[in-house]
């Protein structure tokens, strides 16, 4: 983005929607164009919000971090440069580059990084923080020629690497990727020495834009896609299975088809991180089964669910997979080598992200793999990610069993256990609230800062439900949050993963809420959305009429009358355990 484009975005502004996104931009230099780009990029990211940027004092990085921790914001972006860690490394100072001071500079930087670490941790306790490590070159302070790294430089880099590693271990502290920054902003074109000396701003325009964009992406990560549907022939492997046979398809260096091995490797890795991987292939199902039984397959059959192999339209296969996963097309990526198949699927499933597998083009395959990482990447892998595919597979397996007898009888026999958790700092709860569409009381989404602020209100509570039955665990799959004042209990958040439907978990959660709060009625803050039909159905059942938008009162008497029989064993912490939590 050019500076004029950024200013155009800012000048265009937004209609006053009442939403504000406040961002701390923390650096030791004059923020100048970095502030402009952060404001413009943030505006593009949050088109309906008014963007407010707080900046600090020149030359006081540590103080700026400390002060920001006491001012609420949706996120903080922290740009560290070598000059902030020791003034002798600042091109605007002329304190001397004496060889005898180098050890002292290294010592000072080590101490300063230790202090900065604790300040950043305090800041991260209040809001998500994206940290940019020094992106500008060290000044030529040592006697070494530029072609050679001396001990001083390596010592500084080691101290910085250790510091960043410690930051990355904290889930609220996110380190901006230096390698991604290097792709977008070449090292030699980052410094604007004239601007630095004249105005105290060290970044070139292009570098300021790249830093702003990446830091915002780190602080406000996009919701990752949930599922990937892949073709097989000339995609997962090279060759047409029906023509070449099971031993004729390949994915190896020897057969000049290694790009397919890399793709399989990526699919396996995505499956491990909780991404649903399904197959839609025009093929003979028994042949597909045999191919996946080959011991050298990198993508294992248990990492794929479901397999849709047959001769019908690809879009029909995709429909069946989406129904099996119970997720919408816009959460899914479809990969195929055929432009025609991609077009057919895109037309039938608007919103699905269609990507062409560029067979025989290694560089383009690698680019595709990076695109997949970008679409599915997440900062943390939870237990729920590990069990997602297996729980769907189990659900499919038990469906015939459930259909064969009265559903109530079936639910009675599955040994369902629900564990209620009152942990306020639940990353999983935050994740569920921001990605669940179908069972969602009102579709409300939260930024991390809004989520934390919500629970700072008096009487705020959070209940997370985990579920397990004799077919296996589903992990934490439902969340209720609200505010209790005396016997008045208002619910602002009520979501449940679609994997947990038809188990009456939602009813059990309300039953426990009535029991624990002794409330005579719950106030449900309901809004219909285009996708929350299952929530509307649940409310209709409990209320006996179509739920109106707004605050709905559900009395304990209404609930008792209309709640279906529940068969779960519920574990919840004792009052003492809850108080400790």
């Amino acid at each position, binding site marked *: 983005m050019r*500076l*004029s484009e950024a200013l155009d975005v800012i000048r265009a502004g937004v209609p006053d929607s009442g939403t504000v996104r406040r961002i701390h931009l923390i650096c030791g230099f004059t923020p100048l164009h970095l502030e*402009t780009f952060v404001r413009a990029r943030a505006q593009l990211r949050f088109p309906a919000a008014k963007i407010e940027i707080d900046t600090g004092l020149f030359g006081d990085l540590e103080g700026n971090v400390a002060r920001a921790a006491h001012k609420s914001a949706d996120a903080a972006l922290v740009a560290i440069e070598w000059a902030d860690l020791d003034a002798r490394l600042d091109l605007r100072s002329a304190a001397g580059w004496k060889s005898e001071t180098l050890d002292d500079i290294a010592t000072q930087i080590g101490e300063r990084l230790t202090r900065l670490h604790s300040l950043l941790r305090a800041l991260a306790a209040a809001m998500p923080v994206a940290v940019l490590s020094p992106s500008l070159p060290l000044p030529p302070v040592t006697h070494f020629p530029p072609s050679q790294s001396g001990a001083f430089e390596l010592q500084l880099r080691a101290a910085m690497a250790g510091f960043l590693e410690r930051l990355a271990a904290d889930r609220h502290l996110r380190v901006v990727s230096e390698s991604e920054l290097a792709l977008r902003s070449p090292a030699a074109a980052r410094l604007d020495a004239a601007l630095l000396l*004249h*105005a105290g701003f060290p970044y070139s*325009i292009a570098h300021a834009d790249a830093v702003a964009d990446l830091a915002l992406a780190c602080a406000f990560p996009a919701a990752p896609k949930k599922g990937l549907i892949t073709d097989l022939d000339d995609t997962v492997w090279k060759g047409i299975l029906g023509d070449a046979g099971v031993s004729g398809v390949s994915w190896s260096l020897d057969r000049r088809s290694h790009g397919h091995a890399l793709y399989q490797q990526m699919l396996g890795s995505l499956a491990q991180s909780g991404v649903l991987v399904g197959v839609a292939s025009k093929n003979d199902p028994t042949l597909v089964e045999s191919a996946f039984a080959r011991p050298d397959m990198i993508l294992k059959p248990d990492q794929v669910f479901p397999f849709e192999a047959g001769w019908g339209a690809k879009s029909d296969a995709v429909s069946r997979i989406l129904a099996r996963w119970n997720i919408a097309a816009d959460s899914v990526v479809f990969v195929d080598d055929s432009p025609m198949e991609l077009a057919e699927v895109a037309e039938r499933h608007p919103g699905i992200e269609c990507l062409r597998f560029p067979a025989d083009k290694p560089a383009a395959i690698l680019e595709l793999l990076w695109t997949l990482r970008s679409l599915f990447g997440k900062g943390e892998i939870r237990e729920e990610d590990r069990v997602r595919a297996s729980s769907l597979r189990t659900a499919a397996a038990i469906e015939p069993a459930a259909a064969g007898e009265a559903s109530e009888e079936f639910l009675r026999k599955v040994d369902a256990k629900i564990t209620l958790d009152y942990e306020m700092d639940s990353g999983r709860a935050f994740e569920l609230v921001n990605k669940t569409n179908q069972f969602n009381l009102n579709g409300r989404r939260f930024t991390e800062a809004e989520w934390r602020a919500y629970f700072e209100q008096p009487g705020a509570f959070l209940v997370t439900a985990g579920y397990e039955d004799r077919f296996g665990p589903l992990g934490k799959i439902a969340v209720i949050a609200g505010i209790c004042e005396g016997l008045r209990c208002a619910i602002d958040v009520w979501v449940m993963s679609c994997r947990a439907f038809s188990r009456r978990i939602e009813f059990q959660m309300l039953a426990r809420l009535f029991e624990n709060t002794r409330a005579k009625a719950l106030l449900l803050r309901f809004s219909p959305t285009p996708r929350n039909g299952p929530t509307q159905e649940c409310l209709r059942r409990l209320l006996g009429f179509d739920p109106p938008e707004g605050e709905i009162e559900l009395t304990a008497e209404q609930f008792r009358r209309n709640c279906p029989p529940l068969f779960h064993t519920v574990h919840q912490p004792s009052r003492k355990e809850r108080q400790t939590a």
Partner: protein
Amino acid sequence: MSEQEIRTRLERCFALTFPQLDPASVPSASASRLAAWDSVAQVSLLTLIGEEFGVEVDFEDFEDATSFTAIESRLREKLD
């Protein structure tokens, strides 16, 4: 680049840097009469001019150019 084109593009730089400025007042704008025209705005304006006209702007050369007419004249010299 014609004189008119230089002027139009320069006016656009001013409009972006000083969004509160009435477009009709741009040709008579000066730092002494425009409160928003401080040293930071001067740097932003000059960077924008450098980007718009594809020239390297030496901040020192333009240090005393604190009105639209002065900047326009300095810019014409640079583009010639």
